[in-house]
């Protein structure tokens, strides 16, 4: 397993897709698989229309707000809600997102590599993705 994830052990995750560079973790959190989401200038990536093209936590919250997500402090699985988590680096800049699935298992797209299921958010913390700064939820 990559040394970039010091908290991740062999039993903590399961690879669920082949390597695929067509989408990134932000798109995957938004349940899209055919384009990159990132607040880069158009047309280098997709970002919800009307939102600023700056990589800040608030802007990511706004982007997922367009999909109906709202802030929550609770990452535990709740029946009737979908959840996503935003990771940030030491500067507070978003680096990664994960999406909660049924039974509370999280799924992440690792950059341009594979999708993985992971049992906690913590296993991807402490390395290149930094820490979870915000969890969002929407009613299903």
């Amino acid at each position, binding site marked *: 397993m*990559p040394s970039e994830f010091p908290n991740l052990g062999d039993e903590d995750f399961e690879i669920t897709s082949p390597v695929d560079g*067509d989408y990134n973790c932000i798109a995957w959190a938004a349940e899209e698989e055919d384009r990159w989401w*990132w607040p880069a200038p158009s*047309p*280098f990536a997709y970002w919800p229309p009307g939102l600023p093209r700056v990589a800040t936590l608030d802007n990511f919250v706004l982007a997922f707000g367009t999909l109906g997500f709202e802030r929550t402090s609770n990452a535990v699985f709740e029946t009737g809600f979908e959840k996503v988590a935003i990771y940030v680096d030491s500067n507070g800049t*978003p680096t990664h997102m994960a999406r909660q699935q049924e039974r509370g298992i999280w799924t992440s797209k690792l950059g341009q*590599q594979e999708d993985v299921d992971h049992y906690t958010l913590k296993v991807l913390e402490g390395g*290149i993705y930094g820490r979870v700064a915000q969890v969002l939820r929407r009613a299903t």
Partner: protein
Amino acid sequence: MLETLQFVGRQFDLPEDWDEGTEDAPVVELHSGYRIYYSPKSARLSYEETDTERIFSELAKEWREATRLSSSLTDMFLHPAYQRIIGMGPKAVPMILRDLQFTPAHWFWALSAITGEDPVNPEDAGRLKKMTEAWLDWGRERGYI
């Protein structure tokens, strides 16, 4: 006198004053990064990558490896290896396009920065395959690939 040369699967335009070379003196060094030799003794062509091609390959490999787990296009575009490739200027364009042909990646920022152009339809923003197709068509129209 030959005017074009089919070589490594591509057709090159030769300069008007080209002449037979030797192993010590290449026939022609092509802008695309290959130096071609002709051996009169064996009547055979050979080639090697120029320093430009080698440097590009090394930088591209470094960039791919360093950013393979990143979703941040900001980090990808600002990576030092990517910036060095932009700094290579127009001679990097055919090498980037050839790389795109075989392994689509986010070279679009570099291509736009170097050429000042952007052939991607705004509706295809972020769609790697569509963006790649747009730039490869652009390159074909201009004879880069």
